[in-house]
């Protein structure tokens, strides 16, 4: 008997939580959550070993709906809580859900240092290019030229490249996917959860309510079409000449390293020290 997607999802949802959820119809965040559930299911990780640590905003609310250990933290600080949890109990599988504000703006410093120390946490950055829950203000990922509540005359600043940041800071695994390319996203997410060390997966997810509506993508369908036609595999993306890339952006795996996580190195140091002490 084949198990359908719904049956998997229902195993992991909190039935005692007061649904419906807070997300707008057409939001990509639900797809991310579904993908997350399927990835955990595929890896056969027991629910008790999974900790979801979320930041603030629409993405932060995802933690409420799933039947794992869930911690909804303060704005931008999800990675700091996750670091404490992972160091305190390295057996746990810690997954951080952050928005673009969480990960790049208020929490930018934590992102750099989590990657640098290579703490064994999976960071999912749900990038919708806007502050959704607070009403559509510019985020560091808002593309230059687009309109937001705080950039009514067009965003002047360049948008942040999450992938380059994580790569530069020293993350073990850096990838990007979109909620349109679900199968591919699932593969990337499975890898991100499975691997040791700090793994960053950026997920491009549309916010038609706050971003699309002001920027020529009035319906969710418009935004998904945009994702479909602009996201492409890195290999294909690299073949295009630099000047002709336009709005296109690469998805896939950008870097794969196999360094042990900080918690692994710390506990090894502890064991070595204690052994040396016993032997005098």
């Amino acid at each position, binding site marked *: 008997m084949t198990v359908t997607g719904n049956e998997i999802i229902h195993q992991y949802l*909190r039935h005692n939580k007061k649904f419906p959820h807070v997300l707008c119809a057409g939001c990509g965040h639900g797809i991310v959550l579904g993908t997350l559930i399927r990835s955990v299911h595929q890896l056969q990780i027991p629910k008790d070993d999974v900790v979801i640590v979320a930041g603030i905003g629409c993405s932060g609310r995802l933690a*409420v709906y799933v039947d794992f250990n869930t911690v909804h933290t*303060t704005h931008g600080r999800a990675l*700091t809580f996750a670091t*404490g*949890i992972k160091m305190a109990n390295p057996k746990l599988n810690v997954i951080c859900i952050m928005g673009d504000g969480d990960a790049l703006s208020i929490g930018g410093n*934590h992102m750099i240092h989590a990657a640098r120390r290579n703490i064994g946490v999976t960071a999912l950055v749900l990038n919708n290019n806007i502050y959704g829950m607070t009403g559509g203000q510019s985020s560091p990922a808002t593309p230059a030229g687009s309109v937001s509540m705080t950039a009514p005359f067009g965003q002047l600043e360049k948008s942040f490249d999450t992938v380059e940041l994580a790569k530069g800071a020293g993350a073990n695994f850096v990838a990007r996917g979109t909620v349109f390319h679900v199968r591919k996203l699932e593969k990337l997410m499975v890898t991100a959860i499975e691997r040791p060390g700090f793994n960053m997966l950026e997920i491009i997810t549309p916010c038609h309510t706050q971003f699309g509506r002001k920027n020529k993508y009035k319906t969710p369908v418009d935004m998904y079409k945009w994702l479909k036609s602009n996201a492409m595999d890195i290999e294909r993306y690299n073949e295009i000449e630099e000047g002709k890339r336009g709005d296109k952006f690469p998805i896939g795996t950008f870097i794969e390293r196999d360094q042990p996580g900080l918690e692994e190195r710390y506990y090894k140091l502890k064991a070595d020290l204690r052994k040396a002490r016993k032997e005098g």
Partner: protein
Amino acid sequence: MARPKKHKEIFAQGNEAVVEGALMAGCSFYGGYPITPSSEIMEIMANRLPLTKDGVFIQLEDEIASMGAVVGASLAGRKAMTATSGPGFSLKQENLGYACMAEAPLVLVNVMRGGPSTGLPTSPAQGDVQQARWGTHGDHPIIVLSASDVQECLEMTITAFNLAEKYRTPVILLLDEITAHTREKIKIPHPHEYEVVSRIVPTMPPEWYKPFEETVRGVAPMPPIGSGYRFHVTGLTHDVNGFPTSRPDEVVDHMERLHRKIDQFFYDIQIVEERQTEDAEVVVVAYGSVARSAEFAIQQAREAGVKAGLLKLKTLFPYPRRATEKILGQAKRLIVPEMNMGQMSREVKRVNCGRASVRTINRFDGQIITPSEILKVIMQG
């Protein structure tokens, strides 16, 4: 009959004593960011924790991160601690409020230095008393302790951990630079001489467990993350299951319980020490290193024939009202010396309601308050 073992005695500064106390209380997680005059706590922890059975030490990128990590570790079942000083304390406030809301036990030591802002680094002050009470946003109860000598640093750190675990709340230990950096001989108590409290973990089946339910103790048992009790923790106002709510009845229940869990155990939390207050006509109310100056001053006053006494506050918040009330019935004069512009004297005056005269002695120039300064005011009559 076995002779009682002699106490181990060490020559230590306040910051070292804090570490000793923390380890004796079972602290197994330290996350921090260095700042004088608290840095020694972190440095010693970095040396000690990796050698203990399950101790974890981590230096984070900033004060905010260290507070976040400590809350995370607490949720994962650790007795966790961090230490800081004034400016760092301000940065920790948001996540401190989170810990109050999520009822995560932890200990936060603040070795106060002169302020505001960068202020007077490594000069003694007591300027963060009201920040400790009201620094984070919203209405919430908090436990704030202080210590006036090195031995007390050790003891009050143990107390801080015990209260944190008992009441599922962050506890702040306020020290001043004099206490933190003074070196003196202290006794390390034997394990049977002090109590170590650990949080109660649930024994009921996971599906019965409600993480934020009222109990006779005021707080629900708290399992470490990953032990089979899956629940939601949030900084949002939540119901007994931990899920966000804005239903007025649930909000009221939640807020009232947060306050009640502390209120109903005032007798356990409000710790004071009295010296010669039985017949005192003038009482000095002091805390931290100032209490030591005050103690010397009242002795000198007694020698000069003045009936002087000392009320030493070891708990600053919730303010030990009962102990003050008792004194207000008999003493004609109260003197409140402190190294700030009058943060604790507010509390004394609030309780006083005009029953005695309240004089304050305030220094905020980074200098110690000497016994003679206090004596002068006692003798002024």
